[in-house]
C-alpha cells in the first residue's frame, strides 16, 4: 500500500496523480473465511481493521449490501464525545476518545478530528444540578468536564439567545473540552483502506440472504453472490439488525427508527463548538465548509425509509431557532435521514449470542458515529477471543431480562416518553 505523505503527493504530482493505487480492491468472495463481518459501515470496517491489527486475523470478509460508508457513517452529524455519567458508557467512550486522537496517524488517513469541545446547555437550576452531577461522574472516570455559568457560556457562544424574556433562558452549561467532530466519510475510508491492505476482503453489492446453522453453531452464510463458509459471523448492520435477526429467528430489544439531519447553506465561521439545546433535542456545529450541521429527534415511528418527514424537521429547527435566533436567516441546503437501531434503554449491545459463532453489535441509537473505533476494537476482541472485553461487558444482550439496564438518559425507542 502506498503511504499517504507529502513526499508521495509531490511525487505523484509529476504524473498528474494518475498512478495512485486504488484505496481498496474489489475482490470476489472466497469460499471460506475465518471471520465474516456483515455490514460495511464504520463499525464493520473498524472491526475488520482491529481483527487484523490487534488479533492477527486477516482471513476476514466484510459483506456489504450497498457500498461501504453509504449508511449511517455517511449520514451522521459527526459528533465525537464521551460525556456520559454511567461507568459502562463513560469508560467505553473515553477509551474511544483515545483512539480518535491517534486515528489519523494510525490509519495514515486524515480524518480531520477536531476536538473543539461540546457544550450541553442548561435552562434551569435543576438542570444545572444534574449537569454538575454528570460532570462530577465524568471527572471521576477521568473525562474532562467543566461546568459553565451563564456568563462563561455567553463568552464562548455569544450568538445564542441570552435575552431575559425567553421561554428557555440559558442558565449555564456542561462542557467537555476534548469532545469534537471528525470527517465521517474519511473514517470509513481510512479503516477500509488499512483493513484491505492487511488482507481483509471488502465485498460490496452483496446481500446476506440467510445463515447456515447446525446444532446451534454457525457454519456459514448465504449471500446474493454465493455461499460463504465461516465459523464466526459478526453483525454490524445498525438499522437493518431486525431484518437479519428475523432470518436468525431472534427477536431483539431493538426498533428501527428514522433520524434526520440537515445542513444550512455555508456561512462564514461563527460557531467553533458543538452545542446542544438542553430543553429539547437539538445539536449543532459548523463544518469546515461553513455549513451549520444540525440534528435532533427521531421521526418517532418505526421506519426504514432513510428519508425524513417535515413535521420532525420543523420541530427540531424550532428548537434551534429558540437557541440561536440567527439560524432563521439561513437557507437549508440539504436534509437527509438514516435508519437507527434504537435499543430499549438507549445504550448499545456488543455481545455473543445463543448461537455459537454469532456475534452481535447493535443498538447505537443516536451515538453510533463517535463509538466507531471503540465499537470496532471491543467487537474485534469479542469475536477473536470469543468472550467480551471488560469495556463492553455491560453492553450485554441479556441485560434487559436481568434488569441491568444502562439508562443513561432514558433515550430509547420511546421518544414520546423521554
Amino acid at each position: 500500500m502506498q503511504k499517504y505523505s507529502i513526499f508521495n503527493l509531490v511525487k505523484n504530482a509529476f504524473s498528474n496523480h494518475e498512478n495512485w493505487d486504488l484505496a481498496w480492491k474489489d475482490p470476489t468472495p472466497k469460499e471460506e473465511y475465518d471471520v465474516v463481518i456483515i455490514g460495511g459501515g464504520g463499525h464493520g470496517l473498524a472491526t475488520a481493521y482491529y481483527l487484523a491489527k490487534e488479533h492477527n486475523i486477516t482471513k476476514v470478509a466484510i459483506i456489504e449490501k450497498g457500498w461501504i460508508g453509504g449508511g449511517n457513517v455517511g449520514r451522521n452529524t459527526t459528533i465525537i464525545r464521551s460525556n456520559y455519567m454511567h461507568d459502562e458508557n463513560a469508560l467505553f467512550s473515553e477509551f474511544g476518545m483515545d483512539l480518535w486522537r491517534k486515528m489519523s496517524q494510525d490509519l495514515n488517513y486524515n480524518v480531520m478530528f477536531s476536538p473543539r469541545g461540546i457544550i450541553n446547555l442548561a435552562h434551569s437550576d435543576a438542570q444545572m444540578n444534574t449537569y454538575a452531577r454528570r460532570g462530577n461522574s465524568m471527572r471521576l472516570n477521568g473525562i474532562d468536564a467543566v461546568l459553565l455559568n451563564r456568563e462563561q457560556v455567553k463568552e464562548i457562544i455569544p450568538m445564542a439567545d441570552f435575552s431575559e424574556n425567553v421561554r428557555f433562558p440559558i442558565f449555564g452549561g456542561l462542557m467537555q473540552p476534548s469532545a469534537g467532530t471528525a470527517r465521517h466519510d474519511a473514517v470509513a475510508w481510512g479503516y477500509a483502506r488499512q483493513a484491505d491492505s492487511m488482507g481483509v476482503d471488502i465485498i460490496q453489492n452483496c446481500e446476506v440472504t440467510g445463515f447456515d446453522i447446525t446444532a446451534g453453531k454457525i457454519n456459514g452464510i448465504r449471500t446474493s453472490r454465493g455461499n460463504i463458509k465461516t465459523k464466526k459471523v459478526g453483525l454490524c448492520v445498525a438499522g437493518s439488525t431486525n431484518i437479519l435477526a428475523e432470518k436468525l429467528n431472534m427477536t431483539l430489544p431493538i426498533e428501527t427508527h428514522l433520524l434526520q439531519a440537515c445542513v444550512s447553506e455555508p456561512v462564514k465561521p461563527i460557531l467553533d463548538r458543538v452545542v446542544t439545546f438542553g430543553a429539547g433535542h437539538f445539536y449543532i456545529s459548523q463544518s469546515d465548509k461553513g455549513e451549520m450541521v444540525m440534528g435532533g429527534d427521531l421521526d418517532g415511528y418505526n421506519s426504514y425509509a432513510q428519508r425524513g418527514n417535515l413535521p420532525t424537521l420543523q420541530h427540531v429547527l424550532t428548537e434551534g431557532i429558540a437557541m440561536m435566533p440567527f439560524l432563521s436567516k439561513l437557507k437549508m441546503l440539504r436534509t437527509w435521514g438514516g435508519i437507527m437501531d434504537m435499543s430499549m434503554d438507549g445504550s448499545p449491545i456488543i455481545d455473543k449470542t445463543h448461537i455459537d459463532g454469532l456475534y452481535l453489535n447493535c443498538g447505537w441509537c443516536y451515538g453510533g458515529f463517535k463509538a466507531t473505533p471503540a465499537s470496532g476494537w471491543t467487537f474485534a476482541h469479542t469475536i477473536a477471543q470469543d468472550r467480551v472485553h471488560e469495556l463492553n461487558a455491560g453492553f450485554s444482550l441479556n441485560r434487559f431480562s436481568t434488569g441491568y439496564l444502562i439508562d443513561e438518559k432514558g433515550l430509547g425507542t420511546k421518544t414520546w416518553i423521554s
Partner: protein
Amino acid sequence: MLHIKCPHCGMRSQNEFSYGGDASVKRPELNKEISDEEWDNFVYNRKSLRGKHLELWQHLSGCRQWIKVERDTATHEIFNTYKADEEIS
C-alpha cells in the same frame, strides 16, 4: 407528512397524533404464572420489520382515542386504520 384516517374523526394530519408502537404485542394475562421470558418479550423485544407494520397511535389532539394503523415502514403507505378494540381479520 403522514395523513392518518382516524376511525372516529376521519382523515387528519400526523401532527394531531402520538405514536404508541407495535400493536401486535400482547400483555401477558393476569392471574397466570408469567415467566421472565414472557415479560421480557412484552416489555423489550420487538420484531420491527421492514414492510407492513400494525401499530398504535393516539389521536392526541383530536378525540384522544387509541387506534391501530397498518402502515408500511419503508414507504410510509397507510393501508388501513382500525378502532383499538376492532378485531383484525
